[in-house]
């Protein structure tokens, strides 16, 4: 039995690599946030913009932040974008909805908690940046609402995210 697990694992990795190579383009097209031109899905590369422009200023800022597996630690690129959001939302006139997600691996309820952790991480950072916590709503969808339907690392990496909306 262990032998077949190992061969399965090898097969899975090989398949994953193959599928990953072929669907990279597709996943970019299907991405919810057109601005996010991620290569491996671990960070956002857009530069923050000034807050002078108000709503239009944050239009180009990323609203999806990605995470490592089983982790709720904000990545540096996410921080950069969040600073921009914080500046925009600091005056308290907008309410932010943070939706936390996880990739499909692991159990559903545990992933609910993981999604919440990630959403909380973003919220805590925003609060640190001066946004009032009462204007932030966090919800976790766990693995229930993936943005990518595949079962490979490239899809999974896209699903481990927090989505910010106003």
């Amino acid at each position, binding site marked *: 039995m262990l032998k077949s697990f190992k061969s399965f694992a090898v097969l899975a990795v090989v398949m994953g690599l193959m599928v990953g190579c072929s669907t990279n383009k597709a996943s970019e097209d299907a991405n919810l946030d057109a601005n996010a031109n991620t290569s491996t899905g671990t960070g956002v590369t857009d530069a923050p913009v000034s807050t002078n422009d108000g709503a239009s200023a944050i239009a180009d800022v990323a609203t999806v932040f990605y995470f490592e597996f089983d982790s709720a630690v904000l990545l540096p690129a996410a921080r950069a974008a969040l600073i921009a959001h914080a500046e925009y939302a600091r005056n308290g006139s907008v309410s932010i909805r943070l939706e936390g997600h996880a990739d499909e691996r692991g*159990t559903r309820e545990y992933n609910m908690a993981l999604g919440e952790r990630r959403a909380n991480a973003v919220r805590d950072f925003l609060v640190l940046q001066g946004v009032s916590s009462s204007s932030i709503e966090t919800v976790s969808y766990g693995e229930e609402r993936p943005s990518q339907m595949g079962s490979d690392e490239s899809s999974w990496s896209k699903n481990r995210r927090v989505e910010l909306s106003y």
Partner: protein
Amino acid sequence: MRYWGFFILMLVGFARPAWAGLTIEITSGMDNPTPIAIVPFAGSNGLPEDIQAIVVADLQRSGFFRPIPKTDMIAMPKSESEVFYRDWRMLGASYLVIGHMVNTGGQFQAQFELYDVLSQRKVFQKQVAGTAAQLRDIAHAVSDAVYEAVTGIRGAFSTKILYIEDLRREGPGRYRLVYADADGARDRVLFSSSEPLLSPAWSSDLSRVAYVSFETSRPAIFIQELATGKRMQMTNFEGLNGAPAWSPDNRSLALVLSKDGNPEIYTLEIATRKLQRITNHFSIDTEPNWTADGKSLVFTSNRGGSPQIYQVGLINGRVERLTFDGDYNARPRLSPDGKSLVVVHRQDGIFHIAWQDLKTGNMRVLTETWLDESPSIAPNGAMLLYATQHQKKGVLAAVSMDAGVKFRLPSKQGDVREPAWSPFAK
């Protein structure tokens, strides 16, 4: 003093002459599925349900039997006088089931007999009756009787399952809570929503179901009465509301709330809505499951760094770790006899369902598919239902607890997941 004599007499009475012949020890076996011949019941032609096929499928899926194909049978006896043991012996059958259907004005009665071909004797003779709509139930009752007579274990072929189906298209009715027979037949939708549904759980008296619904844009726990369809929202807290689990007396739900800062386990008394906090740790504590005596919960926690299974006493609050094998063990489900645990277990980066003996701590992987989750044990402890992927679709699969036979339930329209196997009807 007179008792001494009696005692000596007893000793003498128990003394047996020593065996002087050859003794051969048999220390292992093959445990091959038992070959069984199910002869199509007489008088069952033209019935809307194929009783023999249902029984054959039940027994085959249990992993314990190997039904002999109908086409191999050289005779189709209808009564004991027509049974020639040698013929069935030649086919390789260890057991034989024959029967006939009696139809009296819409009421169907199956009269059936089980024969031990090797010992050449009748094991039992039984009957079960029902309406035309209950023909499948009649067939499952036959399977239960045969299964129990041969294995000593109560059959679970007449039980039900719940599962969640995701039709993968936006809009109302995308997510459905489905109720079906244990073999997946006669499915019907209990509730549907445009928002996610998860974690269906049976009350032990089969009267109600608890589940998590996102219909209010946030996860909340609902209870639905099966007979009437009546629904009741039980929680509406900030943050997580999830993983409902019925207490053995059906009076409380154990659940997960993060209203106090991080996911913790609480118990909620259904009648009074009284909430009691059970865990108190900054880690993620979730997925509670009650022990049969109602005195403790097993749950998932990553307080040790990664998800593992723990047990907490409801009275003393003492927490004890149960799993040590591997770096990811979650969603514990206790076996009906309380002696073992079934978990989602990660090995070499792949998620499987694993079984752990609570006394020895030995863990054994049961499934070969990957991305396996949501194991649910049959009420007789002999089989396991779980969710997995097949051809990019979510399907349910079952495995016998000795990991002998594995099979997939027929795939549905959408992704099927989160099975919950019902308890026995009392």
